[in-house]
């Protein structure tokens, strides 16, 4: 993880305690998500805590004392930037509203109003389902002659090779 100059460093004893835990690597998304939380751009989801804990400390739980000291430190950093967060969020809202208005304008008056792409949720769901199924099944390519005559005949009835 790279350092962020806007964040006050952790106390030395916490840094040492973390260093003593060995050569462990936090997930790549952690830095982005923690940075966003600190800057008030997003709230870290509740499920992040156990994941961070698991990634950093492994299956064993983090020492309670360490956790209690880290949390106030993070909260203090977040509070000091709360004002900036509100201003930033307003800008985000304004931009989103502008984008939506422009999009609707294009949708109503523009040439491509019916050209919405396919159902991304269904497509993504299917692709995930297919990947899951294929992960559980061994596919073995064989010579068509190894198939039963009835299977080959079914293929031929559908326009396959004779």
């Amino acid at each position, binding site marked *: 993880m790279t350092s962020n100059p806007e964040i006050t460093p952790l106390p030395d004893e916490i840094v040492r305690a973390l260093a003593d835990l060995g050569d462990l690597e936090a997930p790549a998304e952690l830095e982005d998500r923690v940075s966003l939380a600190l800057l008030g751009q997003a709230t870290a989801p509740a499920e992040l805590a156990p994941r961070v804990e698991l990634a950093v400390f492994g299956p064993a739980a983090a020492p309670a004392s360490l956790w209690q000291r880290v949390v106030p430190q993070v909260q203090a950093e977040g509070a000091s930037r709360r004002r900036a967060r*509100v201003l930033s*969020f*307003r800008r985000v*809202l*304004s931009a*989103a*509203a502008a984008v*939506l*208005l422009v*999009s*609707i304008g294009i*949708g*109503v*008056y*523009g*040439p*491509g*109003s*019916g*050209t*919405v*792409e*396919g*159902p991304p949720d*269904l*497509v993504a769901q*299917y692709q995930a*389902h*297919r990947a899951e*199924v*294929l992960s*559980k*099944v*061994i*596919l*073995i*390519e*064989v*010579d*068509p002659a*190894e*198939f*039963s005559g*009835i*299977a*080959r005949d*079914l*293929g*031929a*009835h*559908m*326009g*396959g*090779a*004779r």
Partner: protein
Amino acid sequence: MRRTLPLLLAVLSLGLGACKPDAWSASSNTTGTAQSSSGSGTAGNSGNAELLVFPEVKTIFEVPAEVLWNYTSHDPSAPQIYQERVWSDGAGGMAMHLEGYAEGSGNTPTAPSSEVRVPHEGRQLFLARHRGPQLRDHDRLTRNYTWEVEENALQIDGIDCDRIQLQSVYGIGDATLLVSHQDRLLLGWVLFDRSGTPMQTLQAVSVDLSPDLNGVSWATAPVSVQDYTGSSDDLVLGFTPLDLQYFGPGFETQSLQILLASQASSELNNFHLRALTDGLRIVFVAQRFATGGAKVLGHVSSVRFARVGGVNLVEGRVEDVWIVAAGPLHQDDLTVILASHQ
């Protein structure tokens, strides 16, 4: 902030109204000359109900016709070309004679051997009904494909034809249809695999819509079939077929039948045959009672697959049932269907 939020919600609701869930299936049918010239899909002047209408497409078996066409089964090693002459009385009667056959690209079809011709003509009814893309289910097609129409894009035997290019929203493979502009007859098509390589191609060479049908020997079904209506038919079938839990990407059951193969030969077992369609493509899943071999418990764990020309086959076994799925679909997608049997 308090004033911005209601505004944002109002804007969002407008946006959702403009993009309501069924709008995606209209998709690219607003483009292409057909829509703009007919006015049925032009932006801002029509409702979504109009946008959902796919152009009319009929098979030549719906009208009296005599057609000569070339069908190509794109085997990865060497394409197989079948030159077929087809007659239709427009009322269900049809006949298909194989006039030429060639293997390998660039080769001209020549008179087929009886080894090729006889089994091919034995399949003529099934081929006419189930080979290639057709407008099998309008609503399902409009949900699973987007399309563009190019009017009068080409001529086939002097007949102006529209080219309809369909794109699968699931990415399972696109298709091109060549439809006569006036009569809406399907005179050519290409089915692609998911990488964009053709699997099956058909194009008419000559078309006669006022045919002389005297002397035509109409096709008959070589194997009797009956509808499968539920467990009460299991006695006829000889076993209880497995349920299909998931039908595949955009597919739905079109028909359930029993192939009464035991009537043709006492050595054959009857089959359960399910036809699945996504509105355009068709996939068949056959089940039969598996005799001998190791019983496979629970879900299928291994699947064998093979490519036979423009069709993929997958087969596996669950419990005491042997299952094969066949169609112009990637083996991964066929495996999803096969593995969904329980």
